[in-house]
């Protein structure tokens, strides 16, 4: 084994630095997509009419039971065929967002179901509007279990972004693969990618714990 520090600092790190930006961008946007998509899927799944809730449940199950990589490929090949041409990064973000929407939907559902039924009944008794019921009573109470779970999905999404290298998005894994192929030296680039993910996940886990404590303290006085 020979680790080349000059190669690391002059060639690998500058290119990895740019790629890290793409990775983080993809993570944040997919996470936002998953937050919104999950909410929509959850509302569809808990809809009163079984004609809405049953198909929504099946769709969630199907998305959850198939590999994200296959879904990325599917979107990547399907969208151009039906006339939608998007850059690979957008397609990938879309795929990761949809996949994690299905997972987040379950998180939201579990959070809302954890709110005691009496709370809903009390709101009806007090003649609160649906909006106020959600804003002032239900959502604040369902946040403590939801926040840490969503935080875990943020880290999970972050670790899923290397899959985008399969469709040639210039994120950190793709760049380390390219550097490896150009110079025929994989050691430095791939190891740095690994360290990057490890450090970022540990930092994220630490931040999530802080947010979790904050939510617990500020909502459940």
């Amino acid at each position, binding site marked *: 084994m020979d680790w080349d520090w000059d190669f690391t600092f002059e060639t690998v790190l500058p290119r990895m630095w740019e790629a890290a930006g793409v990775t983080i961008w993809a993570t944040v946007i997919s996470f936002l997509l998953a937050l919104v998509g999950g909410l929509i899927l959850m509302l569809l799944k808990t809809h009163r009419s079984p004609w809405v809730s049953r198909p929504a449940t099946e769709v969630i199950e*199907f998305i959850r*039971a*198939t590999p994200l*990589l*296959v*879904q990325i*490929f599917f979107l990547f090949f399907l969208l151009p065929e039906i006339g939608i041409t998007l850059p690979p990064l957008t397609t990938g973000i879309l795929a990761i967002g949809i996949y994690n929407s299905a997972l987040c939907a379950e998180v939201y559902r579990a959070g809302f179901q954890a709110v005691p039924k009496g709370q809903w009944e009390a709101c009806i008794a007090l003649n609160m509007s649906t909006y106020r019921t959600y804003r002032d009573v239900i959502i604040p109470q369902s946040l403590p279990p939801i926040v840490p779970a969503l935080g875990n999905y943020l880290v999970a999404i972050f*670790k899923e972004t290397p899959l985008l290298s399969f469709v040639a998005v210039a994120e950190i*894994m793709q760049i380390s693969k390219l550097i490896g192929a150009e110079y025929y030296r994989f050691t430095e680039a791939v190891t740095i990618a690994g360290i990057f*993910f490890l450090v970022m996940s540990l930092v994220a886990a630490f931040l999530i714990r802080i947010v979790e404590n904050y939510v617990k303290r500020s909502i459940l006085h």
Partner: protein
Amino acid sequence: MNRVAIVSALIAFLVGLSVATFSELRVFLPAILKGAVVTVQVSILSIALFIFLSVLAGIGRARGGRAIRWLSTIYVEVFRGTSLLVILFWMFFVMPEFGVTLSPMFAGVAAIGLNFGAYGAEVVRGAITAVPKGQTEATIALNMSPYRRMTRIVLPQAIAIMIPGMSNLTIELIKATALVSAVTLVDITYAAVQQNQLHYRTVEIFLITMMLYYVLAQFVRFGGEALEEYFTRHLNRRV
């Protein structure tokens, strides 16, 4: 049993439908099924490694001495913190630099097993700590050796608790085997991409691919439910 019937009927219906609809199925299905064999091989081998490592590191974190606990914690944090694809690449491209050349199959199984073993270790640790403390105290009072305490009293009860978590992880693992296509193994996903480039039948090929993964996942789900039932019943009879 009802759900097994429904799912198998649904699968039979979808397969029949796809045979009837997708006329070119005969062209690309054999290649995809050949990929499915590889996926199943990788899955079975890495599930074995995953369970072995989870139990080892899980017990290490829950009950080990300081050194063992420290080692298992490092293992769990490192392999949970890095992305599976990065581990896989590291095994396949960087290990040769250290003089260890792994076959694609070996690299895939090792990477998946190590990665999921780290997640599984947390499930096992949670299950072991969930066994009531009185059980351990009783075995100490009965002068059982630590080994017997683990294998006869704590683990049998912990298994019933850990099965749902472990079967979820196993389903995740089967889905994660799609990544081995990155190290030149021709699994379902790789075969599907190849066939798609040859035939341009995106919808058919990828729907079939997803269905295959779905079917594999259902096997694990029902297997897990059966195991859970077996172990809890087994426990209740004794208690």
